[in-house]
């Protein structure tokens, strides 16, 4: 029996669901294991090395920055998610020191300089990727064909670049895009395994369907309107991984259902515009970063009508 003097008075509610921030982060890591596995399968040890360096640099720089800021370092898994996501957006052959610089930039500048988890404006992984692309653009556009663990790396064009030529049938192209047997960033090639990870997150209630569905549907419809190959537009490049794993980042996307739909549509339009009319072959990264920047605006102006709000005129009449 508890002695009565040990009883405490606590504010309610006296129940907690128990799904903590760190649990969510580790579930994200779990879901990311599917595209990660695809990346390692197709691009071998080199891809694994990029992933290890990126994650290690992210966690260590988070630790260092927290010490410098004299804040408690909490191993909540968010740095692992950032490091992993960054690695999945990089070419498998990128020099490892560039990976480390990008990862440090993601954590130290994009995340911590804005106040740390919960306060960053931009998705840290995509911020890091954009930084590497700006500094080392040549190495960020050198792609290799999937070589697994044996063969030598041979350079190739990604499906979205202008020099990409496909000699097989359309069906075999879709098949390779769906399975991931094409050139590209480590984690973006296998639509199948990204979907498996994404559906896992949806089933666990970690992400909402609104952003990925609005994003992918907008790209599909807009591509169709421009007379492009819809399936190709959806399956190629970083759209799938961006829609399920990057655009859904809580901190940098809207909090309301309506806001999330707007976010997805905006990112979709921008992606197609950059791909079709811009100077870059791929636009997922910059589209999401741009929508991150307008997220505070969306959250400010998208209103949800609270229960029982009636127009003044009506209630006075």
């Amino acid at each position, binding site marked *: 029996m508890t002695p009565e003097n040990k009883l405490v008075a606590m504010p309610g509610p006296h129940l907690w669901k128990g799904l903590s921030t760190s*649990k969510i982060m580790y579930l994200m890591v779990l879901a990311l294991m599917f595209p990660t596995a695809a990346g390692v399968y197709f691009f071998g040890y080199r891809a694994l090395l990029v992933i290890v360096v990126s994650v290690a640099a992210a966690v260590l720089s988070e630790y260092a920055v927290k010490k410098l800021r004299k804040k408690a370092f909490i191993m909540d898994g968010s740095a692992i998610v950032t490091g992993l996501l960054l690695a999945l957006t990089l070419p498998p052959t990128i020099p490892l020191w560039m990976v480390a610089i990008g990862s440090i930039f993601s954590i130290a500048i994009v995340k911590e300089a804005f106040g740390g988890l919960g306060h960053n404006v931009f998705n840290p992984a995509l911020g890091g990727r954009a930084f590497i692309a700006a500094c080392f653009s040549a190495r960020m556009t050198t792609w290799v064909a999937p070589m697994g663990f044996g063969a030598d790396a041979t350079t190739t064009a990604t499906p979205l670049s202008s020099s990409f030529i496909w000699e097989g049938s359309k069906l075999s192209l879709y098949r390779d895009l769906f399975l991931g047997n094409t050139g590209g960033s480590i984690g973006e090639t296998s639509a199948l395994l990204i979907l498996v990870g994404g559906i896992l997150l949806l089933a666990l209630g970690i992400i909402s369907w609104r952003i990925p569905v609005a994003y992918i549907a907008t790209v599909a419809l807009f591509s169709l309107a421009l007379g492009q190959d819809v399936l190709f537009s959806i399956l190629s490049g970083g759209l799938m991984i961006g829609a399920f794993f990057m655009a859904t980042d809580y901190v940098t996307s809207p909090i309301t259902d309506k806001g999330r739909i707007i976010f997805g549509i905006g990112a979709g339009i921008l992606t197609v515009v950059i791909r079709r009319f811009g100077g870059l072959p791929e636009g997922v990264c910059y589209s999401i970063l741009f929508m991150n920047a307008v997220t505070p605006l969306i959250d400010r102006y998208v209103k949800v009508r609270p229960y029982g709000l*009636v127009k003044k005129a009506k209630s006075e009449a």
Partner: protein
Amino acid sequence: MGFNIFKRVSRGVKLAENKSHTEKPIETFPLPEKVTIPLQQNIGAPCVATVKRGDKVLTGQKIGDSERFVSAPVHATISGEVSATTTVINPPTGQPVPAVVITSDGEDKWAELEVPKNPEKLSVKETLARIREAGIVGLGGATFPAHVKLAPPEGKKIDTLIINGCECEPYITSDHRVMLEYGEKILAGANIICKLLSPEATYIAIEDNKPDAIEYMRGLVAKTEFKNNFKVVSLKSKYPMGAEKTLIKNLLNREVPIGGLPLDVGVVVQNVSTTKAIYDAIFEGKPLIERVVTVTGAVKKPKNLLVRFGAPLRSLIEYCGGIDGKASEVILGGPMMGISQPDLDFPVVKGTNCILTKESRLIREQECISCGRCVAVCPMYLLPTVLAKNSKAGRYDECKEAYIDDCFECGACAYTCPANIPIVQYIKIAKSELTKRRAKK
């Protein structure tokens, strides 16, 4: 009712029920040797004692009353002698409330009860007067005086009466048991309310986690003269379904205006136990002196007890075998909206539907990650995270603009928050600051 694509998705949270521990018959708690009766057990004005130290009182005798309209008298719950007057601290407000202490003579001699010859033929005025004299308040926990609720102002037409048997908070089973054991009295009580309000429709609303109560009440309704008027409806078990505003939204797809009352949309909601108390008052002349309390959580033998008001919490916990090793908190009410009460000398009062003993929840607040879970569960369609952030930063006016007054503090947001932010506390702080500012003006 019916399918409506424009109806907004109902929000709320699915909670672990934890009701099975006390899904068993009501036991009568032994007569207390001493009771402490606070003179305010309702929302509204407090009572003034009508007895003094040394007076002999009988069970059911009025010992405190008020001349104000929004008030309800209190009665002696045992027979004996007024041995002291004292004050107790009212847990929700922290305000001291005067109380009358009665020492039992062990005989439980009742005051003479006046039973009307033809209870169903009483006039509206007479019925309301009897409900008031019986000291009936909302027993779901809100303790709003029943005679006030049942007398809507002129010009407010009530078209729907909802008898609320949802009991959406986990652990609590008192309303559930009252339905199963006093179902007929509830129906007769509902019939009295119908005579007062003449609604077009009467619903008995029960969450689908109580299929036995739904079936039983349906069976009863079918057997009675009410079969054409009363409808027993099964609602999804989703907290906070039993809250008036949520219930009205889910059942009728109507929204009570901000700052308004259910009667503004033609609805009166009355709890099942309150409805039973109205039956007792009108048909048996009995004032409200006892209620069913669920004693559960970390006690050795959880029970539903029929308890006279004024019995100390300690006596109920001891009757149920005492607190188990791990509990560090005693909560009056359910785990979501209940209030911690570490002082076990505090008595059972009209609003005590449950005594829950449990391990307290640790709050380690982290940064908000804007996941939007609080937004997705808020039954009032508010943005709890925005309210909490603005309150934390002292921007109370922005809280007001974000409709903070619409929040009834159900706690679904804080329950679901991954960052463990005590959102309800921040909202309470902002509300009390805004009230202070209003008072200054």
